């Protein structure tokens, strides 16, 4: 079992949130899993964490299509935040539009954090979705 301190799930669909939570239970013992209905709420939560000097979540599951602030807008904001840790961000979408994949790749290249791309439906969360093997170390 992988030990993680904190995980964010950002998705407006309660079924997906339920599913991710359920899958996480089988692979990690993390006790701090928070879900947000949209990017705006998640960003506020993250900023508060930084303000309180709490460590950032190690993994974020991020939906693209959300009201108020969607996944891309959230990533835009995240990039501009000064975060030392490298967060593993799993972009999860039901979209099979190549444009979404292109945008993801653009973010991947310019983003300090690790970005994964996962299409719905999800059946299982792999260990590689939660950690990054540091080949160099």
């Amino acid at each position, binding site marked *: 079992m992988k030990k993680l301190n904190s995980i964010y799930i950002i998705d407006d*669909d309660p079924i997906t949130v339920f599913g991710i939570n359920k899958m996480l239970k089988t692979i990690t013992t993390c006790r701090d899993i928070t879900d947000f209905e949209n990017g705006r709420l998640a960003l506020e939560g993250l900023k508060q964490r930084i303000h309180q000097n709490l460590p950032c979540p190690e993994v974020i599951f991020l939906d693209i299509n959300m009201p108020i602030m969607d996944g891309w807008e959230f990533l835009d904001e995240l990039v501009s935040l000064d975060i030392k840790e490298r967060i593993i961000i799993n972009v999860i979408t039901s979209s099979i539009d190549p444009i979404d994949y292109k945008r993801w790749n653009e973010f991947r290249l310019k983003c300090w954090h690790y970005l994964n791309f996962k299409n719905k439906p999800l059946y299982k969360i792999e260990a590689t979705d939660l950690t990054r093997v540091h080949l160099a170390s």
Partner: protein
Amino acid sequence: MKTTKTLHHQYILKQLPTATALVGMDTVLISASDSWHAIFDTESKLAKPIHTYYSGHENITQNQLKKNLFESQEKTLRHKKLADGKEQWFNSSCSPWFDEDENQLGFIIQTKEITNLVAQEEELKRTTSHLKATAEIAKIGSWEYDLVTEELHWCEETKKIHQVEPDYKPTISEGINFYKQGYSRNRISMLFHKILENGSSYHEKLIIITNKGEERWVAAAGKAIRKNGEIIKIFGTFQDIHEQVMADKKIRESEQLLTTLIDNLPINVFVKDKDSRKILVNKAECEYLGTTPDTLLGKTDFDLYDKAVAQISRDEDLEVMRTLEPMLARETINVRKDGSSTNFLTSKIPILDLNGKSNGLIGMSMDITHIKQKEEQLHNLINVTAIQNKKLINFAHIVSHNLRSHTANFSMLLDFLIRETEEKEKQRIMKMLFHASDNLLDTLENLNEVVDISTNVNLDKKSLNLGENITKMQQNLSAFLEENQVEFENFIPDDLMVLSVPAYLESILLNLVTNAVKYRHPDRTPKVELRAIKQEKHLLFSVTDNGLGIDLERYGKKIFGMYKTFHNNKDARGLGLYIIKNQIEAMDGSISVNSEVDKGTTFNVYFNEKIE
């Protein structure tokens, strides 16, 4: 007696006023008059052979003298001498001298000064040759008809024009028959008859058929010559003008061809002088301006077109004449005085004078109004198609995304269900499956609604009273409006009618008012203002609230998109604005939004007032 008699003769001879000499059969001078001696400058009056007297004159040899004077038939001789540097011409004639018994005693020679005659002859010769040359060069022949002898005389040139032999002798009827049968012959017959009758001159261009059968144009002229009031002769000229007539004809034909061509070109052609006055216009140009060439000539564009348009045209003219560079196929717009405008493809080409300067131009304008209209229609069609295409792609994207997200949930939940052993958890998953199923049905219903609008081609637009529909909407929403204590300000005139599909108007009013209340500001009583203004082609209906407002810089592009919500509101489906935008556009209208965060929002709906 005999001597006396001789002396007597001699004495008479001496005094004869006509220069006369008596010569014996041996051609020795016997006696001569003083006047004869004066001509030959003889000092001694001795009997000498006659030729010695002539030796002082030019070109006379003994043989010549003998031959001309005594042996030739004429028995005359012309001779000359130089006196004081001037030529004096003489004519000597010889006749035999007989006695009473008809025995020839010798010769009588008479000599006359003929200087004047010779000069006249010279002059005549020169004039004749001059005339002949002139006739040859100008191809002007002459003829003469003698009424007394009824003889017709043609000069050499006249014969040449008729292509007859130099020795041809014409009669009047032959002369007339040379004219081509028909008009030419009839005309000359009549003219000749008239000149004979009353002496009226003529000058006419007619056709003859020459001796060799060639048709040629001639200028025939006749003039009566009278003597004591009686017409005795007709004198006339005869000129070959075939080449000129043919050249003239050719020029006229070319001109005719050019005129026909210019006139019937389906484009407007005009020639302007340096002041941009029209000096030539074709039929198309006249028809375009609805007038005749006479009224157009001398006019400028300022007389014919709108002032601004005329100024542009004048500037073009000046530029073309200044630079000598033709203006080719430029798209121009002409606005006539009555305000109607036409699109043209115009070319202007400078006309150069001999000094290489331009004092005018040729203009050609092709009416491309209908092409322009087609182009515009095509452009509009492309725009419509592009918009529809975009909508379709957007819709396809929405459909695939929304349906996919639900099916993905089904898939995931079913996967959980299969592997789940715990009964309580199974129940939970089942509940979720039902939820997912409901969501899918909702989504399909929403999509159906949108498809309905987009595919409803036969829209039945009706003229509806806007005020009445607003009242109806307020009644339908009464519970919701009361609960939120909504304050209405209705500025809409009672009798204002709007053209819309009834169900769409209802939907538009419902959605806009509901939105205005839903996104109310937590610190303020919701206030909704309704306004409507008739515009040229539209009726503008606006709904203004004092609610949260929307950050348009951020969401402006998405506000009318499907499943887009921008506020943390539980009721938000992200469908209302998308649907009414589709409804409004289906009725050829449009919707726009103005907003300021924390101040409020105004939605402007433009109902299309055009009835198709």
